């Protein structure tokens, strides 16, 4: 018994699984999910392990890429299967697939005396929606990367795909976790992978710094998320979604009755804390600064992690815990304003940048702001839809940029590239880029981006008190259209012209890249002679295939948006079938009632129905943006570098410069936070050395010093003894004098 107990305790997954299953079964309304759902995260994990082994055995082929693609594809299939299972279970159903116990202990039998955060997967329609595009896009981008990263075969290749797989695993945990702690695991896990992948070119100090920045800024958000989780647990006695949502009921009742002020303050505080976590991960003000820098990573990483999936985790978090957000008076308005301001700020910065990848990064920040606004204006469907469509077209845009970067030796400056779409072998890239730009700009009717953006704008104008946000978003939409097509008109059309980059990012530390990577070009007289030989190396089949699929998918994204079954469009039904719409309609109505008193009336846009009006207005705004971009960057452009727009630049004065320098936000942060902290740290170090330790040293030194100071008196010097004797007598006599006084 003794000997076997430890073994049985450690024995492994099987008994624990039963335990967890039993525990889960106790929770009301929980349906055991399909085991296949567990494959969705586990297959990427397997891929991670295999890639790790490849690295250990120094595999010098594309094997890790194929492993990753295969595993991710299988994972995608598992998600699809799960989704089908879920549909069978019926709309709004929730399934739980337990795996094994994680942090699970108790100190009593009462409620709240048992902490349980297990490896178990919460499967509902929101999960499936997210997992579908995460695994799907991940598969495609892994395929893209297999070619894109090919120059690193045998070196960073295994590392790249290992981290890539680990990312998908973490993302799956984030999305599928059945409790907030598992979400936190995924949350930090994707942060780690982001860190590892941004720092992929680890010899570049800027990449290392960017990776560090991303991780630390994210950690700030993570802290608040963790505090939110703790508060959640203290209040609800659980971190599992099912139990939280079950216990949030009384408060929702209060909300429905309009007694907002009776909702406990703790509950209202939870979303405020969770929100900051979301801001960190989704690069919103004031924590957005890491995302543009994160473009130091390889482009597939930018596409998958920093555009399509990871950065939408914040949106997911809010959508997932939407009932909690509804309870707070302040949470959603704050989210909305932060989102709107971020959208505008990032758009203004994006307009002034020249690095096309950075423009895309700022555009991502801006679009994430849109999504947050969508959530804030009680349009979680719109937000989810925008996440969905944005994932496709933004990934495509990044991948197109990546292809350009790949082909032109790291050249990303839009002043040094022109007419790329018309070069030989670049057609697919050009088309993909065009499709992406149309979507991002919100070209009316035919693009998915238009519809999803429209939903958010409509909701914003339809929600009382949120019109201001709506106007900001509308302005941002125009700016977005402008800077998107600025890139397109400058880089992909117009006269053919290119200057190769100094060096391909990936090549700077790998010898073989130098010879063919350094290209020359006739126009670039200033470059090294070898540049004359430079030929842009057009993308291969994998890249083209992926771009093609994505281009189609970007359009196809309209389908789930617009069509569907009985419960409205598919996507809407999926969102509504989850916690993101959990009692949402009633709650929002109640919130409106509480806020204004005039019940169900939607706000209107100049007397028109906001949703219908937006279809027109946003389309027009998008057109105007594109038109301006055309006039400034295509019609008036003479060479690659010069266009009429440049002459307009001085008109904006310091504003343009400031926007180009990202409104000096990095510098301000550095000045206000990093520098003082550094100074304080140094002061602390000095205090530690001289005060805290000095005190200790003094305590050790004092007896020695006393002894040392007395030592000369015993130095054999006659006078010393004599004076001691005389002084001693004086003291003695003095004592006698005083005593006998």
């Amino acid at each position, binding site marked *: 018994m003794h000997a076997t107990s430890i073994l049985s305790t450690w024995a492994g997954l099987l008994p624990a699984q039963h335990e967890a299953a039993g525990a889960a079964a106790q929770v009301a309304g929980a349906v055991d999910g399909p085991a296949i759902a567990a494959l969705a995260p586990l297959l990427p994990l397997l891929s991670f392990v295999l890639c790790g082994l490849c690295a250990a055995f120094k595999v010098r082929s594309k094997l890790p890429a194929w492993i990753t693609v295969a595993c991710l594809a299988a994972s995608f299939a598992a998600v699809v299967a799960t989704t089908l299972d879920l549909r069978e279970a019926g709309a709004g159903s929730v399934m739980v697939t337990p795996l094994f116990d994680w942090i699970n202990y108790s100190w009593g039998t009462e409620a709240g005396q048992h902490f349980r955060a297990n490896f178990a997967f919460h499967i509902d329609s929101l999960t499936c929606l997210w997992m579908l595009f995460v695994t799907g896009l991940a598969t495609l981008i892994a395929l893209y990367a297999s070619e894109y990263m090919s120059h690193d075969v045998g070196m960073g290749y295994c590392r790249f795909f290992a981290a890539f797989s680990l990312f998908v695993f973490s993302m799956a945990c984030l999305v599928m976790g059945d409790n907030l702690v598992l979400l936190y695991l995924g949350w930090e896990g994707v942060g780690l992978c982001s860190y590892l992948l941004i720092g992929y070119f680890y010899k570049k100090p800027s990449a290392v710094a960017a990776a560090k920045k991303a991780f630390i800024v994210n950690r700030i958000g993570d802290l608040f998320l963790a505090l939110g989780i703790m508060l959640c647990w203290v209040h609800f006695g659980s971190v599992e979604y099912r139990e939280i949502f079950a216990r949030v009921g009384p408060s929702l009742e209060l909300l429905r009755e309009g007694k907002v002020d009776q909702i406990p303050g703790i509950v209202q505080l939870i979303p405020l804390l969770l929100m900051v976590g979301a801001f960190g991960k989704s690069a919103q003000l004031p924590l957005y600064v890491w995302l543009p820098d994160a473009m130091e990573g390889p482009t597939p990483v930018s596409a998958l992690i920093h555009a399509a999936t990871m950065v939408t985790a914040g949106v997911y978090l809010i959508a997932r815990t939407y009932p909690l957000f509804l309870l707070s008076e302040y949470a959603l308005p704050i989210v909305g304003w932060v989102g709107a301001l971020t959208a505008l700020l990032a758009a203004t910065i994006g307009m002034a940048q020249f690095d096309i990848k950075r423009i895309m990064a700022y555009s991502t920040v801006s679009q994430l702001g849109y999504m947050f606004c969508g959530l804030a204006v009680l349009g979680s469907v719109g937000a989810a839809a925008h996440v969905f469509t944005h994932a496709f077209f933004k990934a495509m845009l990044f991948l197109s940029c990546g292809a350009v970067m790949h082909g032109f030796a790291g050249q990303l400056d839009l002043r040094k590239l022109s007419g790329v779409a018309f070069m030989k072998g670049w057609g697919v890239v050009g088309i993909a880029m065009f499709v992406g730009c149309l979507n991002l700009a919100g070209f009316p009717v035919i693009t998915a981006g238009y519809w999803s953006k429209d939903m958010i704008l409509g909701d914003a104008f339809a929600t009382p008190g949120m019109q201001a946000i709506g106007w900001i978003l509308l302005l941002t939409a125009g700016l977005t259209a402008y800077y998107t097509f600025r890139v397109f008109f400058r880089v992909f059309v117009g006269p053919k012209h290119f200057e190769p980059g100094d060096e391909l990012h990936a090549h700077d530390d790998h010898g073989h890249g130098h010879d063919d990577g350094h290209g020359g070009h006739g126009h670039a007289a200033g470059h090294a002679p070898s540049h004359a030989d430079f030929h842009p190396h057009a993308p291969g089949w994998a890249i083209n295939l992926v771009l093609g699929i994505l281009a189609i998918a970007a359009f196809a994204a309209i389908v789930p948006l617009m069509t569907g079954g009985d419960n409205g469009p598919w996507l809407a039904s999926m969102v509504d079938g989850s916690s993101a719409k959990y009692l949402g309609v009633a709650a929002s109505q109640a919130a409106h009632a509480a806020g204004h008193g005039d019940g169900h009336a939607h706000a209107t846009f100049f007397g028109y129905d906001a949703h219908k009006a937006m279809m027109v207005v946003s389309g027009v705004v998008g057109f105007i943006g594109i038109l301006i971009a055309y006039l400034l960057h295509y019609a008036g452009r003479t060479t690659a570098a010069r266009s009429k727009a440049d002459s307009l630049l001085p008109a904006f004065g310091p504003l343009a410069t400031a926007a180009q320098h990202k409104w000096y936000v990095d510098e301000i942060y550095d000045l206000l936070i990093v520098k003082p902290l550094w100074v304080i740290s140094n002061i602390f170090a000095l205090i530690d050395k001289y005060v805290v330790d000095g005190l200790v040293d003094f305590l050790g030194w004092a007896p020695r010093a006393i002894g040392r100071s007395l030592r000369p008196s015993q130095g054999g010097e006659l*006078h010393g003894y004599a*004076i001691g004797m005389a002084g001693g007598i*004086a003291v003695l*006599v003095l004592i*006698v*004098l005083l005593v006998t006084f």
Partner: protein
Amino acid sequence: METIKQIINPYMLYGLCVLGALGVCLALPRRGISPQVLGALVASLAGGLLLLAMGAANPGSLPNIYFYVFSLVALGAALRVITHPRPVYAALYFVLTVIATAGLFLILSAEFMAFAMIIVYAGAILITYLFVIMLATQSPQEGEVEVLTEYDTAAREPVAATVVGFLLLAIMTTLAFRGLPDLKTPAPLQADSLLAEMPRKIERALDAAGTLPEGGKVKLDDANRAVVDWTTRQVTVVAGGSESQVAIPDGLKASNPDRLGFNLLRDHPGTIEIAGVILLMAMLGAVVLSRKQVQIDEEAKMKQANSLAAALAKAKIDNRTGEGGGME
């Protein structure tokens, strides 16, 4: 404080102590410019004032004028002893101190001690000192200016020492003055009973006065004391078997050495023995210490060691035995 005030105002006492300290401090030799004369003047001033100020409230009980003369000379010479850079002069000043002290002893009616002091101290001990000083000081070579040694010209920590010294002075004077008025004045001697112990002296005095009968002797009792009737100051004299009463001459009394001798020999015989032993041991010690032998041994040892070292070094260098070196 009350008791001190009978003798001197305490503030004046302490003030003069400070002044004296300042003076002594200045008078001590030091490197560079040292205001020795000024210091000496200040110190003497302080001492003199102190002595004058004491008992000024009751002029009748002041000591006589010679006390001031002798004490100031003694103290001034003592100050010079400790301030003079040349040991020889210091020793000579010490002689002066001894002589002045002897003068004080005279005032205190201790004539024997006064002269013994001069003879033993000034005559013997100080001469020994001078000898040693001569021995231990190199005389300047021909045409060479005598240079004082550094340890003679610069006092060591004069301030600290002076402060300690005068602090001690202030405390001790306070202590002494506090107790002095409480001392009970002893009753004057009723009779010079000690004279009875010295029958021969009485005999000689009677003889000199011519009152002693021929062949007469002073009558002794069992303890060999003269039989004296102090009320009439008459001593019993036995002359040829008959006793007669003879008056003791007026001026006759036991002198200072008499009394001292009696005190010393009758009251403190053991102490004398001890003193004798001390003197003997000192003599032996001095003889042993100053034996030339010791030094020779040391020198010989050193030479031997040196030569051995040299021999070894030599052997090391040219690989030869150092016998020659050993013989040196």
